[in-house]
């Protein structure tokens, strides 16, 4: 008995003592969401969903083309508005907030979105993309053990990413962006990962304003890039 116990304990202590590196965790994460090969083929993602605001469903449509543009259309109580971001510009038209015509986004906001236009994710080939990643150990996020990675992104704000230690899905990101000289932190929770064309995407995304529940997600279907054009012209 003693003989069995000893190697067991040794192995266990070896396992726990073996510090995971950022790269190992990233590799496992990428594998968990479909693998690098499949992700490198992602060129567009179109998502439709709803947010519930006081019992009223608000429609959200997100159309992303890899490194070309991102457009969100929001429909609230019979009105529609949108926000467009491209690598160099951005605009928004939110009539529910009283806007009567599209307005350009400040440069800060465009820059803060730049790395998010990378649909294949900041983790794939992160070094080549100019990001750095630091492993900060594990942390309990609302009762779920997570690996904590600090991602210093090339263009946009630094991100702390929490990866479920069991599923290796990202369950939370916390992004710091700089607006008007102030650091603003935005927390995003992700869940309900589902398979779409071999890759795993979160169908439920929670930000401070509410949770977007996706009703349809399409990958690599063609998108008319005119939707990212300057709407003020």
């Amino acid at each position, binding site marked *: 008995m003693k003989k069995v116990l000893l190697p067991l304990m040794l192995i266990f202590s070896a396992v726990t003592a073996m510090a995971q590196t950022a790269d190992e965790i990233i590799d496992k994460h990428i594998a968990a969401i479909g693998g690098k090969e499949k992700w490198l083929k992602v060129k567009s993602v179109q998502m439709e969903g709803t947010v519930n605001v006081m019992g009223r469903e608000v429609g959200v449509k997100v159309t992303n083309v890899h490194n070309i543009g991102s457009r969100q259309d929001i429909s609230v109580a019979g009105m529609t508005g949108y926000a467009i971001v491209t690598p160099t510009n951005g605009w928004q038209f939110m009539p529910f907030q009283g806007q009567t015509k599209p307005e350009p986004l400040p440069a800060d906001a465009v820059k803060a979105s730049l790395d998010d236009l990378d649909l294949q994710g900041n983790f794939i080939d992160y070094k080549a993309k100019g990001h750095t990643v630091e492993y900060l150990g594990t942390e309990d996020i609302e009762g779920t053990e997570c690996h904590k990675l600090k991602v210093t992104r090339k263009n946009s704000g630094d991100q702390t990413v929490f990866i479920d230690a069991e599923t290796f899905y990202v369950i939370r990101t916390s992004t710091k962006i700089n607006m008007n000289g102030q650091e603003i932190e935005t927390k995003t929770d992700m869940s*309900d990962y589902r398979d779409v064309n071999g890759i795993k995407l979160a169908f439920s995304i929670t930000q401070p304003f509410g949770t977007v529940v996706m009703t349809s997600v399409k990958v690599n279907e063609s998108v008319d890039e005119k939707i990212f054009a300057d709407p003020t012209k």
Partner: protein
Amino acid sequence: MKKLLTALLCVPATLSMAQTKINSATFGMMEARWLGPGTMSGRITAIQGVNNEPKTIYIGTAGGGVWKTTNSGASFKPIFDKYCQSIGAVAVDQKNPKVIFVGTGESNMRNSVSIGNGLYKTTDAGDNWTKVGGLDSTEHIAEIVINPKNSNEVYVAAPGPLWSDSKHRGLYKSEDGGKTFKQVLYISEKAGAADVAIDPENPNVVYATTWEFRRKPYSFNSGGPGGGIWKSLDGGKNWRRIQSGLPQGLIGRVALAMAPSSPKNLVAIAELENNKTGLYISDDGGENWKAQSASLNVVSRPFYFACIEVDPKDPKRVYRPAFSFAYSVDGGYSFAEASSEGGWVHSDHHALWINPNATNELWLGTDGGVYLSLDKGATWSFKGNLPVGQFYHVAVDNANPYRIYGGLQDNGSWVAPSAAPGGVSNAVWQDVYGGDGFWTVPDAKDPNICFAEYQGGNMARVNLTNGKAVAIQPQKGPGDEDLRWNWNTPLYVGTYTGALYCGAQYVYRSTDQGRNWTRISPDLTTNDKNKQKQEESGGLSADNTSAENHCTVFTIAESPVDGNMIWAGTDDGNLQYTLDGGKTWTNVAANYAAAGIPAQTWVSSIEPSGFDKNVVYATFDNHMYGDHKTYVARSNDMGKTWTLLKGSEAMEGFAHKIKEDLKNKDLLFAGTEMGLYCSTNGGKEWFRMKNNIPWYALVRDIAIHPTKHDLVLGTHGRGVIVVDDISPIRNMTEDVAAKDIVLLKPEKLTLRDGQFGGGGFPGTGGWNGGNPPSIQPIKYYLKDRVSSGDVKVEIVDKDGKLVQSIPATKRKGINMVTWNLRGTPPKMAEGGVKLDFGAFTAPMVLPGEYTVKLVVGDKVVTEQITVVHDEKGDMTLEERKQQYDAAMKLFNMQEELAALVDTISKTQEKLKGNIEKLQNKKNRQAAQEYYDKLEELRGKLMATKNKSMFADEKRLKEEISEVYTAVAGNEAAPSNMQIQRIDLLKQDLQKQDGATKAVMQQYHQKVMQAFEKEKIYLGPKLKVSGAGTSG
């Protein structure tokens, strides 16, 4: 090998089959609210700004961790909530300001000072912290300095333990950026380092001061042979005393400052023997000293006021933050009070940061928060947004909303409602008594009366309606010894009888609000005369403020089940009870000692069980003898035998309070100097409560509200913290926790729109602790976080109709979702140009039975929920029905209108772009006419031209919405005029409906046929009202 592998693989399975452990995560979303307030804030111990980004400032506090502002104090965030909350020093590496060191364990060595557990470092400006350096046993850190030319060199001045001898004190130096430290200046087990400074021009020149000091529970000594001022010329390797010019004799605490613009100029406030304490200066790097000012503010309480700073640009301008704020323009020869106008600044100052780029800007840390001056201290503005008050005790009453009472270190006694319109803000806190506040308790019967006290038993009856106080302290009677009142004298209202109790060495009881008292005990203490020499306390400087009073009663508790059973615990280890209302007392001190609790320990709290007279809990605090262990104990036989409630994981921090739940006898809460612990199995196992409670909060007192079921914590550094409605904790068992999904039986919900109105513009500034939920949330338990599938709650009425579908959270543990007691808002017409609040308003449901359906992925769990009319509300049930009917009429009209607009828009959509295709000119004209008429109709039904959000455009949709939101959104029956208006709008809607039908009748078939004739396909046929199916 194969066998081994199999064994290995089996292990995780066994682990997962083990019982689900109840811990903080089990209670998921039950997150505490921080009530603060910020109005009196609390003791600030360290302030450090970032020189190149001076809007970024780090604030270290006595018991509230570290707070950071990046906007000169417009807002602060706590950045140290998982670590020890007592902060001694903060240092920013100005070469790389993302690197910050925090030394835990405040070094303002007053009786109530907390204890630290080492040094922490961040390399990302406070997002992540690591304990470094192996300084865990220093207990107190006074100063950290980083070599400005070499960030790897860090010095830490550690006075070391206050209550015991220790080798872990002195000056420490790191040469590897804080990873490891070497003790470079060590004096003795009794004397540590109190200050350190580096010459910025020649960083090998280092100055340090050493201090010999000791507290006992009944005395304090500052000063001894270990004290002195030291200098090293080789980066800390070799040291020599530099005291030439100082008077001979013992040295106490020395506060040292160097003029940054002229580093050979030093100022030191030295506590010295024979009344020689004063400010001394040197202009030759400490080689020779010269006496300067010894004004009151310079010499006052050297052990407590160890702060002196020199203006970064002007070597002659010296600041002395102490009892008050004084400045000198002649290098310390003379001082004057700096503050002239601009309001009161809290006395007792411990920290000052001067912006080196703009030396007019001063940040001052006091016993009552942070102040900012932009004119070198002449005027100050208070930062009311730091909720770091140091409560000693907390109590609740039965008002609605209930009020919270508590007394704070150096900040008097306060009362606030637990809920208020707009949230519990600074403004709703009422100051009821002065001095250092301790027990502040409501009278059992009279809602206008509370009792409060300041240090040394100076107690009063306070009329809450006008703030007037009457002193009620019992007096020495015939044959009594001089009364000995603890610093923190127990002042207590009996849970059974409602009588008022207090204790000196005797216990007193009053049944008439303190007007008359009866002594109901003999001296319950050890009455050890050796522990009663407080007049000799202080060391080199006399200091006897009742803080060292000893051999006193410290805690009193009446049994909730028997008014004649009273327990009293003393600060010198006696634990006594009476079963006859005080005629005879039994001392059980020897009995608890048998359970391994040291004798002469402070009995910090006693909790006679509310379920069984024989059961009693107590906490014991032995930290004043250098022992920090957590002693929480229970006796099942009225104190004859005791069991330590240890649990399998070590609790941290000496114990202040044990609280038994009012409903579940197995649910216990324990407050220690380092956190809140909870046990759901009668103390067998404990877990740290983290639910938005700073993990190491100094939890001094705990109350549970009898009807609201809130857990109310009095913390010594984070103000009042409330966990709303702990029922889910009460009902949690290991069996429940083992289930995948549990929908907790919902409470009966009363129909009302919350407790308070919405108010207008929100108040800004200060701290706001928010409100408890105004509608009780629906609660459910998830064993694990849901990572695939959606989670929602559906409310279904008795006919099976979906009332509302509510998105729900997926956290591990208890989740909460609020049903606003309403249905789903009406469908609104598409294509509007203004946000219509009617689109977010649904009528409140009628009383009755509803079903709550919790949907988790493909699993569904249901419970019934009863919704009842608010009998105490502003309307009758009949009126509620009238309101519902009126609201539903408008709701239906809005949906009818939406359908009408939908028909119009869809028809227009078909026409649009196709009209020009018609070859026949007449038909083309007709089609265009049709389109334009429809647009005209649409423009009458709803606002279609958005000129500006400030330009009102009201059409039928907006008019219906206006009445609808007024009727459905108010808690009132509809008025006669609203009802009349509904009929008028109904007529308008019918008229528009008629007009639409008429237009469609006139044009639709004709126009559609024209398209058909020319073979222009318009898509699938539309069902058009008034025109049959066509097109």
